């Protein structure tokens, strides 16, 4: 099964709707609660990152019997120092993003912790693509 969602820059009122929709789908499919939690926490963090930092993007989710693959691709500033961004506490979030409860510098570390495979392709001034895989077996 394939699902696609759009990401709108700075739209915190609707941020999380894609992750919410994926959570409902995984529940309906009878995926184990622990795997649902891992998938939606990772996807939600990536979705929030894109809303907070990028100029727009898309989320593609593929689910089959053995794995969930979630790709969050944005057009945005890119991540200049990916090693730093993977460290807990590192953040470039704006004051507005912090007011929404984010910007603690836990986004990418949370994504890494909750996924089996994580691939981040980023280019400064172009954008970032985060590919997250959860194996269901």
């Amino acid at each position, binding site marked *: 099964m394939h699902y696609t969602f759009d990401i709108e820059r700075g739209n*915190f009122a609707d941020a*999380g709707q894609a992750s*919410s929709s994926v*959570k409902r789908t995984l529940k309906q499919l009878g995926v184990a*609660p622990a795997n649902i939690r891992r998938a939606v*926490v990772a996807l939600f963090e990536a979705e929030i990152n894109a809303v907070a930092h990028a100029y727009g993007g898309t989320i593609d989710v593929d689910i089959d019997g053995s794995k969930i693959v979630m790709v969050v691709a944005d057009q945005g500033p890119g991540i200049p120092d990916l090693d730093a961004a993977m460290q807990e506490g590192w953040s470039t979030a704006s004051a507005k993003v912090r007011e*929404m*409860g984010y910007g603690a510098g836990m986004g990418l570390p949370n994504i890494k912790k909750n996924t089996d495979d994580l691939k981040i392709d980023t280019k400064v001034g172009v954008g970032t693509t985060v590919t997250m895989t959860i194996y269901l077996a």
Partner: protein
Amino acid sequence: MTIKEIARLVDGVIVGAPADDSYDVEKAFASDLMSDVLRFSMDETVLISGLCNNQTMRTSEMADLRVVVIGRDKQPDAEMLELAEELDITLIKSKFSVFKISGILYEAGIQPLY
């Protein structure tokens, strides 16, 4: 501890989804940082927060939280209340500070998440 008992202890008002009397809360976590909430498993846990917006609800949804105490007399808006009902999350509004709410619940036997 039941949700209604928590509401009584923090002199709170229940809004959002109705309190599920069968839900037993054993632990609490206090945070205004939503990514910190997402770091941990929140089974049988109440979130205590001063953050009062849609993202408090979305984060609670992803973390499988069923009940959130909103401290500092923050007022959820209509959209947040609607989302709470839709996601089956009970909100307890309290005039107390997050520190005071945490102290009261700790004294009453609610355990820290860690």
